């Protein structure tokens, strides 16, 4: 039998299980958030569901104690790997003062943690992308060897910010990984109404960088592509544009009803290719995960989420006066 993919990549049992665990944790937090939203406890959810494999594959190829992450709102899987906890994310969901991202000043899914090298971002799409280029430029000037991964949806790659950032990174050969999570839709608008080329990665050559499109449901394929991109970045070979193909399994957000623009058959088909399902199967058929291990993993995650939900529910909002803090230095 030929060498399995994970062996070729040098990934071992424990690491592989860790990947699955992060993917599952993200999925289950998100599922809980929807329940809380429907119960009227949190006002807004924007999901990672369907993107976890791409996200976790990507960050597994990075060095969380060295590299920088400039994610977008779906990247629960990424920020968990970079050190954010379930409780942190629940505090953000409930907009509590203890939310380490912004003390309850932002919506859920707007990640930021200086400690964990996750650069704070905001709601207008693609605005984080030029920041990644600036972070990378700072690293180049200071002769540090980190890479910056910034992510965004395919719809967001039509903002000027994307093109300006990509061009800048290309010109200056900066170690930026432009990570496009293509899920075929920008809210209701299908990809053929968003871009005229076949793939977002086709755009890479215009900016003098490497570009490729990979299966976003396969965390190992994504790992490999991002690992190579990170190596190129550290070697001074400049930026890369990695596009992952996956599917958003939920409506765009808790305010959206996707039945007006996607058929249920299409969504059901995508569920069958869900990276969590296929990766679990990959591990099990290769005896890298036993049934008991799987069950224990699910139970442990569920318990952590229950505890985090309870803690966040009980936690307080920020005091009203604190909205006036931090607008200026003093």
């Amino acid at each position: 039998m030929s060498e399995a993919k994970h062996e070729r990549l040098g990934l071992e049992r424990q690491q592989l299980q860790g990947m699955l665990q992060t993917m599952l944790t993200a999925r289950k937090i998100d599922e809980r958030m929807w329940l809380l939203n429907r119960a009227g406890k949190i006002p807004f959810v924007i999901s990672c569901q369907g993107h976890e494999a791409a996200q976790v594959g990507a960050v597994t190829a990075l060095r969380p104690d060295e590299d920088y992450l400039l994610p977008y709102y779906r990247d629960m899987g990424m920020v968990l790997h970079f050190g954010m906890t379930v409780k942190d994310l629940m505090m953000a969901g409930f907009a509590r003062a203890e939310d380490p991202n912004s003390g309850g000043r932002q919506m859920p899914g707007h990640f930021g943690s200086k400690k964990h090298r996750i650069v704070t971002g905001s709601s207008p799409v693609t605005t984080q992308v030029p920041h990644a280029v600036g972070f990378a430029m700072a690293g180049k000037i200071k002769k540090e060897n980190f890479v910056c991964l910034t992510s965004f949806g395919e719809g967001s790659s039509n903002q000027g910010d994307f093109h300006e950032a990509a061009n800048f990174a290309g010109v200056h050969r900066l170690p930026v990984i432009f990570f496009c999570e293509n899920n075929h839709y920008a809210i209701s608008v299908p990809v053929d109404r968003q871009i005229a080329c076949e793939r977002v990665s086709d755009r890479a050559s215009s900016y003098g960088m490497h570009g490729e499109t990979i299966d976003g449901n396969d965390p190992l394929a994504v790992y490999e592509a991002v690992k190579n991109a990170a190596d190129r970045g550290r070697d001074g070979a400049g930026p890369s544009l990695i596009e992952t193909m996956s599917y958003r399994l939920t409506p765009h957000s808790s305010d959206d009803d996707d039945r007006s623009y996607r058929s249920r058959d299409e969504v059901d088909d995508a569920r069958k290719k869900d990276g969590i399902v296929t990766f679990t199967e990959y591990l099990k058929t290769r005896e890298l995960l036993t049934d008991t291990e799987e069950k224990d993993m699910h139970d442990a995650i569920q318990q952590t989420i229950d505890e985090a939900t309870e803690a966040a529910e009980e936690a307080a909002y920020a005091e009203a006066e604190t909205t006036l803090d931090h607008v200026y230095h003093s």
Partner: protein
Amino acid sequence: MVSPAVNTKKMTMIEGVRNAMDEMLKENEDVIILGEDIGVNGGVFRATEGLHEKYGEDRIIDTPISESGIIGNSIGLAANGFRPIAEIQFLGFIYPGFNQLMTHATRLRQRSLGRFTVPVVVRAPYGAGVKAPEIHSDSVESLFTHMPGIKVVVPSNAYDAKGLLIASIDDPDPVMFLEPLRCYRSNRTEVPDGKYTIDIGRASVLKQGDDISVFTWGAMVMDTMKAIETLEEEQNMSCEVIDLRTLYPLDKETISASVQKTGRAAIIHEAPATGGVSNDVISLINDTSFLYLRAPIQRVTGFDTPVPVYSLEQEYLPSAAKIQAAIVNAVNF
């Protein structure tokens, strides 16, 4: 204006907006709409619901997420004879298109000596109080009133929304049409069938009164009316309430006539105090009616900080208590 024979229907403001666009699409082939998710999906607030089926994808155009593209493209269309309506999904997302607005939409007419014109309407939902995320809730009207060359309109109910939107589409100049999110579905007014217009630049006296003139617009109209209702019940005073409806150009006659009658004024808005449109209203009163004033002009505004998310937004918004206190202050001065 409306003749009594015309049928009317009770509508929410979002229905009034949709109805106005429907009328104008029907009447004028040059009217087209561009925006994100406005086609098949009918718009994230359903402003364009049904219009895609009715008028087709050449007139109801789903765009990529590119606000600069939406506004820039609309400028090109407008300068070439069309009457585009550009929908910005939330006002907080207009900034990528700001360059196009500031350096072109507002200036084509002047720099081409009137040869090129930009009859475009930019529609955008805005304002706090609906538990929206950060950036989605800001009230930045004064960024646009500060741009010479564009008019700024803010309806607060369905009747005004329809008449003002039709007037905006017909207007030969660019109009920023700001739709307070909190008004979309929170009240219903009678709206006549067919086409009618409300003049841009005309305020609406919602309630006559003798002791103070209260100026407001957008979602704060509802709060102000409510605050005043209890105030008048509890205390012996009579307030005049004026919905400005257009923030540029301001209705100088209505504002000054009212202040000259009551001798007192209060201005209520959601936006931060500094640079807010209240300052222009105060200047106007100062220029026209200073010697009529019997008390300092009051204002109740948001704070000089970004609008906080839902947990604290009620603390940020002018409350009934603050509005009442300001009025009492002026009247008892």
